[in-house]
């Protein structure tokens, strides 16, 4: 019951109802799910949407270039998932000057930079990655004895998302666990497998792994399996991709923090619809996240890509108007 809101033109004459979305690299299932969320919502709601993505997760200027390219066209609303806090600010200032709606999803735009550039961000949708890392940290704390050794495997060294997730994890475990090592596995399953194998070899007492995304988590699971330690080492990752959920169900991955990229994408488009209809948007929308363990895995898979737990969508009311 959310169709049509956008077509009958609010007072804003400059705006068209067309939506442009610029997200991170599509070489990762997380952002593919996000794209699906955007596209499918747009289709059911009859919104014209264009999705562009960076070449890869490190392509900060490429993403900015793409946004700049789109900014010159007649889109009324921009949904952006910036690779870093600032990389899209330049390009967005152009959008903001033209008085178009900016919806920030997933990774937040740096508040200071936004202020400097006079950006007005209609709404921010997402869980910050630190919180997701924190959930994983809490889970690991429950699973292993205090003082156990844990290892962290992040994405490309210096990557912002990876940094936030890892920082959240570290903050949550605090000094209760012994973080023996922090490695970078470039977001890749194969690299994570090699790295985890080495870490297990060097640290036979390692009790848990945290990976900054599911792909690397699955690589670690494989390493644990190869070492014959399945069940003895807790592996948690972040994302909630389908194959990760399946691995959780099958007893491989201990848990994944599902961020529901599909829902984030969906909310992004819906926020644009609300804005186009002249509705009011909350400054921040908490998109659902959930820790998926073996117990919830079946439900999560069944509901995929939607959130499995009931979720209060704050935009539904506005859209229903």
């Amino acid at each position, binding site marked *: 019951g959310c169709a049509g809101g956008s077509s009958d033109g609010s007072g804003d004459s400059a705006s068209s109802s067309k939506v442009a979305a610029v997200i991170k*690299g*599509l070489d990762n299932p997380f952002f593919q799910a996000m794209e699906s969320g955007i596209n499918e919502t747009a289709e059911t709601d009859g919104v014209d949407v*264009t999705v*562009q*993505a960076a*070449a*890869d997760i*490190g*392509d*900060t*200027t*490429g993403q*900015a*270039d*793409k946004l*700049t*390219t*789109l*900014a*010159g*066209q007649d889109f009324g609303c921009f949904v952006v998932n910036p690779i*870093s*806090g*600032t*990389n899209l*600010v*330049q390009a967005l*200032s152009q959008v903001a000057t033209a008085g178009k709606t900016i919806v920030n999803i997933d990774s937040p735009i*740096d508040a*200071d*930079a936004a202020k*400097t*550039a006079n950006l007005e961000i209609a709404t921010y949708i997402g869980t910050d990655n630190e919180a997701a890392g924190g959930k994983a940290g809490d889970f690991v704390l429950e699973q292993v004895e205090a003082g156990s050794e844990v290892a962290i495997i992040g994405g*490309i*060294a*210096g*990557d*912002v998302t990876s*940094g936030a997730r890892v920082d959240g994890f570290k903050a949550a475990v605090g000094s209760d666990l012994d973080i023996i090592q922090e490695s970078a596995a470039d977001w890749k399953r194969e690299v994570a497998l090699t790295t985890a194998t080495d870490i297990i070899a060097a640290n036979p007492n390692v009790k848990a792994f945290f990976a900054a995304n599911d792909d690397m988590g699955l690589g670690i699971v494989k390493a644990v399996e190869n070492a014959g330690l399945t069940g003895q080492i807790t592996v948690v990752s972040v994302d909630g991709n389908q194959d990760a959920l399946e691995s959780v169900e099958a007893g491989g991955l201990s848990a994944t923090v599902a961020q529901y990229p599909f829902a984030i994408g969906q909310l992004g488009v819906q926020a644009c619809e609300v804005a186009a209809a002249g509705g009011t948007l909350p400054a921040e929308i908490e998109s659902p996240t959930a820790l998926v363990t073996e117990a919830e895995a079946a439900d999560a898979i069944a509901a995929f890509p939607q959130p499995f737990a009931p979720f209060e969508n704050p935009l539904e009311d506005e859209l229903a108007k």
Partner: protein
Amino acid sequence: MTTTEQARPSRLKAITAETKQLSFWAENAAPIGLVVLVIVFSILSPTFLTLGNIKAMLVAAAILVILAIGQAFVITTGGIDLSISATMTFGAIGFGLAFSNGAGFWLSALIAIVAAMLIGLINGLLIAKGKVTDFIATLGTLSVATGLALIVSNGKPISVNSPELLTLTSGSLGIFGYPIILAAIIAVGAWFFMFRTRFGLHVQAVGGNEESAVANGISATKIRMAVYLISAALAGVAALLLVARVGAAEPAINTQYLLNSIAAVVLGGVSLTGGKAKIVGPVIGALLLTALTNGLTLLGVSQFYQPLAVGLVVVLAALLTRFQKK
């Protein structure tokens, strides 16, 4: 010596014209590719040739243009600089650190360029003095520069809020943004150095035949040192534009820039074996690659098809160079 047939001028003319045509297409693969792209995209997308989009494209191209020019100097000597984008990253971090520690814009910019040239110096020493293969030396410094950037920045992006940078990235003269104007000035300077000074001639000589150049009293060591320093210095300048563009100095490597800088040079008709200098070619090559991504984005081509499209264009443009004269 040319034993052209003076007797049959008309037939000769025809042949010459034909030859001209074929080699004309080949020598100008990059500009021709660019023109074709512009035509195709402007038919397919009404936005492509709007002033706003052209301006956006030129600004987006500036970093790659500058890197391609640096790379062109190195490639002319028969070398290659794989560390160019890591050097840029290192320069950017240098800028970020200096700026956030209170150094003003100009001092920070100087530090960025000096930091970048430090990597260039290592490259030069390894390759010119150490006689290490260019490929492996710069592959090593690629890693070294990346590592250093991560270490000094502690792996975190450094936000930079500088009015000068803002001016640099958003100011413009007509449709020409300051970044592309800077790139154009560098291109003109590079052309001048390459084709009108002794230094440029010596760069070409070393690339063409090092033994002969040395026998004629040219110091290949100095020339090689110089080109790696030039390449690094230009990477430092590009770092300023990079920081200005993304509003922060980030320690992530931009592999894309590395491959594209080389592709731009080669598309511009410079042979990787060295000895043949070109500046305009690489600049147009960089514009071509930028226009390609821009157009594909405008057309809403899916991210999955973009690498394919880029690959096909690169291959087609390269096929054209087949007919280049030796």
